[in-house]
């Protein structure tokens, strides 16, 4: 058996695969953030809290209404997305004429409230959520045993990410959206309801976070803190990819998952910090991000 720099290949491949799975979460979450930033110019600090909220919604649907994983995968993002629309209408829309920083501070406050409420009612020890029957078990890939559910996570995230990218970059609706961010007045003059579009976009971005939350529920225990530390990493992903760049957020998400996996093999202590190192370097050399269009 060959070894690479003293690392057995199955360990390397295994960690890379785990990195890809983590990267799937980063990609979906940072995609939502990038959509929101690209179209609303809001830094959504509440993204992690909304991701957590969707996991809880999935859990509640099962616990109180007996609604299982598959319907929850659609319902929970819709519910959380609707909640996002409510936030946008009542609060965020008042801040569009101000500096970006106020959006950041407002959503930071919202994140504290949402996390605090769930912590109060459910504690932080976490609630179990079963892997759906159809995806239990796993297969042996030779270098590692891959649980079916984790394979599904990768597939689902790729489908959602590229679906979103296609919608925004290749369809007429997406073209309106992009135009509306460039020049809202002009697009409004063409008879398109810009505030409605912005509202739905925020709802959609939040729903993406919700989707990631439901995907995560069976892997991590459903826990009020599950989004709190993740959000910082996802921010870094968006900044590295280029704020507002859809493809940038997606590719950077997967890429950083892999980089993290690699770091775990060669220098485990550094795995938590490697993303921030990359972010600092990128910002200093290419501040608009790897895939950013404008500075």
């Amino acid at each position, binding site marked *: 058996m060959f070894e690479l720099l003293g690392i057995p290949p199955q360990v390397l491949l295994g960690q890379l695969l785990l990195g890809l799975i983590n990267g799937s979460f980063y990609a979906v979450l940072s995609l939502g953030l990038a959509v929101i930033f690209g179209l609303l110019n809001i830094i959504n600090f509440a993204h992690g809290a909304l991701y957590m909220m969707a996991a809880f919604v999935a859990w509640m649907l099962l616990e109180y209404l007996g609604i299982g994983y598959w319907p929850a995968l659609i319902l929970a993002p819709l519910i959380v997305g609707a909640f996002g629309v409510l936030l946008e209408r009542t*609060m965020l829309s008042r801040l569009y*004429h101000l*500096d970006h920083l*106020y959006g950041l501070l407002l959503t930071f406050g919202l994140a504290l409230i949402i996390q*605090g409420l769930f912590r109060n009612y459910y504690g932080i020890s976490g609630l179990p959520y079963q892997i759906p029957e159809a995806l239990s078990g796993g297969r042996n890939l030779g270098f590692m045993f891959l649980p079916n559910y984790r394979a599904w996570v990768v597939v689902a995230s790729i489908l959602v990410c590229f679906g979103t990218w296609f919608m925004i970059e290749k369809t007429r609706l997406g073209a309106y959206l992009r135009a509306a961010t460039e020049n809202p007045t002009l697009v409004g003059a063409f008879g398109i309801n810009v505030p409605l579009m912005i509202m739905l976009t925020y709802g959609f971005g939040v729903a993406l976070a919700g989707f990631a939350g439901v995907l995560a529920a069976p892997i991590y225990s459903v826990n009020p803190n599950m989004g709190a530390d993740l959000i910082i990493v996802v921010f870094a992903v968006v900044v590295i990819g280029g704020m507002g760049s859809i493809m940038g957020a997606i590719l950077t998400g997967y890429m950083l998952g892999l980089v993290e996996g690699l770091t775990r093999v060669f220098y485990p202590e550094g795995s938590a910090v490697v993303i921030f190192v990359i972010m*600092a370097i990128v910002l*200093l050399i290419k*501040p608009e991000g790897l895939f950013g269009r404008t500075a």
Partner: protein
Amino acid sequence: MERTAPQSTTDPTPDTPMAHQAGMPRLHKVIFAILLAFLIVLPFLVYPVFAMKVMCFALFAAAFNLLLGFGGLLSFGHAAYFGGASYVAAHAAKVWGLTPELAVLCGTLAAGVLGLAIGFLAIRRQGIYFAMVTLAFAQMVYFFSLQAPFTGGEDGIQSVPRGDLFGLIPLEDNVALYFFVLAVTFAGILFLYRIVHSPFGQVLKAIRENEPRAISLGYNVARYKLMVFVLSATFAGLAGALKSQVFQLSSLTDVHWAMSGEVVLMTLLGGMGTIFGPLVGAAIIVTMQNYLATFGAWVTIIQGVIFVIGVLLFREGIVGVISRWIKRPL
């Protein structure tokens, strides 16, 4: 879309000639005097450790306000300097056996050096990018603190001796330590006040309000930004170093990003760009945390609500509003 910088909408300071005069306006003198008198009797009214905590955070918020309110730069990583200094001071007092004033000095200097290194890189970026870079560096400091052997990881540095001030005056007693902390924080806040009202502060104001104009007037804007960044980091470090002596402990809480958020909250609540706002904000938040501690997560929720209300309705903060009412800068 027209965007207004946060400072110009929130800065209540009317451009009175008063600010340009040498010395302190009488109103400010009176407030400082009353504050000092109050702080001298305070340890006999409330638990001194609690009062010291308030003062440490007041200094921290004042230092942060120098950067945000007067420098116009929102850092989301000030916990790095606060917590970093707290670790260095704790280590100096415990392992090197330094006296409290030297340990605090070590911590403060370390924060200054850290601020210089991070600031040098961060000030090249503006707005959200600046906030993100500072956050990224603060996360690196956090993970360093988690893994470096001298910080004790999750355990933190515990049972830091309070020692003897100048090797002479024992600070074991809470009240004795209180007056040491009072002297240092009060001097620190006065010094920050002095900076704001110096020619240096005037240049900062010019940069904040119109950077291109300041550049065309021939100011080396980058140098000024770096200086204010380093000063802010240094005083944040002073606050953190003092805190480690008060609680005889420094831990990951001090370097976590939530701490960076907390200091933003204190400044925003009290009124950024005001002299007394951060002190008021710190006092309110720390008191709230102290008395609501038994309600668990409600503290977080209330903090979140204050954030939301502050951003939506009171962008001027408490002191900012008062200042507008009485039509005088505070």
